[in-house]
C-alpha cells in the first residue's frame, strides 16, 4: 500500500472520528441544550420545543443507528440544519459567507509565517553562536504570547493610537462586497494587521524549530564532507543542510496547523474580522449549537485536508517516503 493511500485512510478515519464525536457529544452531555436555547430566547413559543429538538438532532425519530445514518447523510450533502440566532437562515449559508475570509487571511498569513520562519531558522541554525542567538529569549516570549493578546496590543498601538491601520472589521464601512478594486483594496488594507499578528506570533515557533533541526543536521558527516570538498557556504547551507532539515520541519507544520488555526480564530474575534472565528463567538454567546457543530466540522476537515497536502509535498520532497512506497 503506498504511503499516500495509507495517509488518506488515516485522514478518513480521523474525519470519521470527528463526525462521530460530533454526533455523540450532544447526546452524551448532561444538561438540556433545548432548554438552554428556550431560556435564552424568551420569544420562542413552547411549540418551538419540538422544532429545536429536531434541529439539534436530539428528538430524531428512529433508533440511534437510524439517526446516525441520516446524520451522516446530511453532512455529506452539506446540510447542517437551520441556525438558531438568525432563524431561519441555513447554517451552511452562514458558513459560506465566512469561510472565504478566514481561509484567505489565515491561509496566506500562515504560509508566509512558515516560509519566513523557516528561512530565518536556516540562517539562525547556520550562524549558530552568532548574533541571532541573542534573539532567542525574545522569540520565546513572542511564541508564548496568546494570539489574541498580541492582537489587542497591536490594535491599541498601531490602530487606536497611531491610526496606521483600521480598527477591526473586514472592509470599510458602507462598501458592498464585490470584485471591484475599491472593495478589494479596502479588504487587503483591513487584513494587514490581523495577518501581521499571525505572522509575528507563529514565525518564532517555526524559526526555533528550524534552527534546532538545522543545528542537528549541520553536525552530520555529509555536511562536513561537503565543506571539506570546498563547496561554497551557500551551497552547503541550502543544498546540503537545509534541504534535509526541511523534512522534519514540514512534518511539524502538519501537526502544528490545528494549533495555529485555533489561535487565529480567537484572534479574529479581537479584530471583529468577518471570518469563522467571529461566527464561532456568536455561536458560543448565543448557545447556537448547530452552528458550533458545523464550525467544528468545517475547521477539522480543512485542517485534515491541509495535512494531506503536506503529506503529498513530503512524498515529492523525500525519497525515503517514496522508497518505502516501493518496499511495501
Amino acid at each position, binding site marked *: 500500500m503506498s*504511503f499516500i493511500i495509507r495517509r488518506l485512510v*488515516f485522514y478518513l*478515519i*480521523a474525519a470519521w*472520528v470527528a463526525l462521530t464525536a*460530533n454526533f455523540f*457529544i*450532544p447526546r452524551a*452531555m*448532561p*444538561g*438540556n441544550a433545548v432548554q*438552554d436555547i428556550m431560556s435564552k430566547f424568551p420569544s420562542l413559543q413552547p411549540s418551538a420545543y419540538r422544532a429545536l429538538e429536531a434541529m439539534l438532532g436530539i428528538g430524531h425519530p428512529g433508533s440511534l443507528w437510524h439517526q446516525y445514518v441520516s446524520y451522516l447523510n446530511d453532512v455529506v450533502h452539506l446540510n447542517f440544519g437551520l441556525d438558531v440566532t438568525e432563524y431561519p437562515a441555513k447554517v451552511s449559508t452562514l458558513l459560506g459567507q465566512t469561510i472565504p475570509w478566514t481561509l484567505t487571511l489565515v491561509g496566506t498569513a500562515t504560509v508566509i509565517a512558515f516560509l519566513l520562519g523557516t528561512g530565518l531558522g536556516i540562517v539562525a541554525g547556520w550562524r*549558530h*553562536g552568532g548574533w541571532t*542567538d541573542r534573539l*532567542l*529569549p525574545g522569540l*520565546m*516570549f513572542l*511564541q*508564548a*504570547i*496568546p494570539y*489574541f*493578546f498580541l492582537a*489587542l*496590543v497591536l490594535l*491599541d498601538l498601531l490602530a*487606536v493610537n497611531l491610526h496606521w491601520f483600521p480598527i477591526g472589521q473586514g472592509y470599510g464601512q458602507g462598501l458592498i462586497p464585490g470584485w471591484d478594486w475599491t472593495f478589494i483594496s479596502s479588504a487587503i488594507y483591513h487584513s494587514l494587521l490581523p495577518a501581521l499578528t499571525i505572522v509575528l506570533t507563529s514565525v518564532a*515557533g517555526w524559526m526555533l524549530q528550524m534552527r534546532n533541526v538545522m*543545528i*542537528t543536521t549541520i*553536525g552530520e558527516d555529509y555536511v562536513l564532507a561537503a565543506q571539506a570538498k570546498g563547496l561554497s557556504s551557500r551551497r552547503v547551507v541550502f543544498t546540503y543542510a537545509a534541504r534535509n532539515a526541511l523534512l*522534519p520541519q514540514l*512534518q*511539524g507544520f502538519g*501537526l*502544528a*496547523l490545528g*494549533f495555529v488555526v*485555533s*489561535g487565529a*480564530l*480567537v484572534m479574529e474575534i479581537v479584530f471583529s474580522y468577518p471570518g469563522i472565528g467571529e461566527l*464561532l463567538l456568536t*455561536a*458560543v454567546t448565543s*448557545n447556537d449549537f448547530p452552528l*458550533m*457543530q458545523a*464550525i*467544528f466540522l468545517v475547521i*477539522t476537515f480543512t*485542517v485534515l485536508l491541509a*495535512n494531506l497536502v503536506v503529506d503529498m509535498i*513530503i512524498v515529492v520532497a523525500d525519497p*525515503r*517516503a517514496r522508497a*518505502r512506497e516501493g518496499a511495501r
Partner: protein
Amino acid sequence: MTLAVPVTVDPTAPAARPQQLGRWRRLPLKAKVGAVLLGFFVLAAIIGPLVTPYNPSFQNPAPALSMHAPDGAHLLGTTQTGQDVLSQLLVGIRLTLELAFVVGVIATALSVLVGVTAAFLGGFWDELLSLLSNVFLVIPALPLLILLLGYLPQKGQLATILVLSVLGWPWGARVIRAQTLAIRNRDYIAASRETGESSWRIITYEIVPNEISLIAANFVNTVLYAIGASVALAFIGLADLNSWSLGTILYWAQSQQALQLGAWWWFAPPGLAVALIGTSLVLLNTGIDELGNPRLRDAGVDLRLGGRRIRPTDPTPVMNAAPPRRGPVAAFLHSFSRSSLLGEGGLGEGGLGDESGTSR
C-alpha cells in the same frame, strides 16, 4: 557532544556550600531565568489572593473610579465598574495556575497510562491506541474544546479542567509510547521477566521510573497547553465569568471595550502575565533540553577548556582538561532533557511519523 578527554580529578574540590552555588551556576542561563520567573508567579499565586488590596469583585460606585489610570491607591488602575485590576490579577494568577497544574497532572497521568499500555500490550491494542492519539493530534483542539464545553451545563473551573484533561494526553502518549518501546527491549527488563515478575510490577517499578524525566518534560508542556487553552476559552466567554482568572479578566476587558477606551492597564497586565508564565515554561524546557544537547546552546555558554574557547559545533577537542562535571542537581535536570533521551536512539522506530528531537 562528548569530549574525548581523560577525566582528571578536580584538584580543588570546593567546600559544600560554594559547590551548591556552583551547581546552580552551571545550569544554562535560560533554565535559571525560567525557574526564577516561574517561581515568581507561583509565589504570586500562593500569597497573592491573601494580600489583595481590595475585593476583586467589589464595584466602587464612585464615578471618578471608573476606568481610572494606575495611581497610588490602585496600582494597576480600575475597570469600568471601579474594580481594582491588581486584585483581580492576583486572584486570577492563582486560579489559572491551579487549573493548569491540575490539568497537567491528570493529562500526564493519562498519557502515561495510554502510552505505556500501548507499548506494553503491542499488537492490536498498540495499533488502536496509537491511531487514537494520532487522530486526536490532528483534529484541531480548540473547536472541539468549545463544542464540549458549550454543551456542558456548568462552565466552571471543574468543567474546564475535565475537558482540557480529556483532550490533553495524545502528544505525551505518543512520546511515552515510543520511549517505552525502546526500554521494553532492554536487557534488565528481559531479566526481570525471566525472574518471574508480573507485567504490572515491571511497568510500575522498572519502566515508569525510567521515564520520569520524559514524563516531567511532558508535564511542563501540558501545563503550557492548559494555560493557553483555558485563557483562550475564557476569553470567548466559555468559563465561569463570575470568577477571576487571567482569561476572564481579558474577557471583561474585551467586552467592556477597554481597548477602544484606551484602558491599557486593564488588558495589558493579565495578557503579560500569561505571556510571561508561558515564556518561563518554554525557557525552563529549552534550558533543560540544552543541558542534554550542548549543540543547541547559544554563544553565551561556550565551553572553555584549558583556556581555549570551544564552540559547540567545533570538532571534538583533544586535550588534557577535566570536562565540567555534573553535580547531582544538574544531572537530575539533565535527565529531564528530551534530546538526551533522543540521543540514546530511543524515540520512535524511525520514519515519517517521528520528530527529530524538536518540540514545539
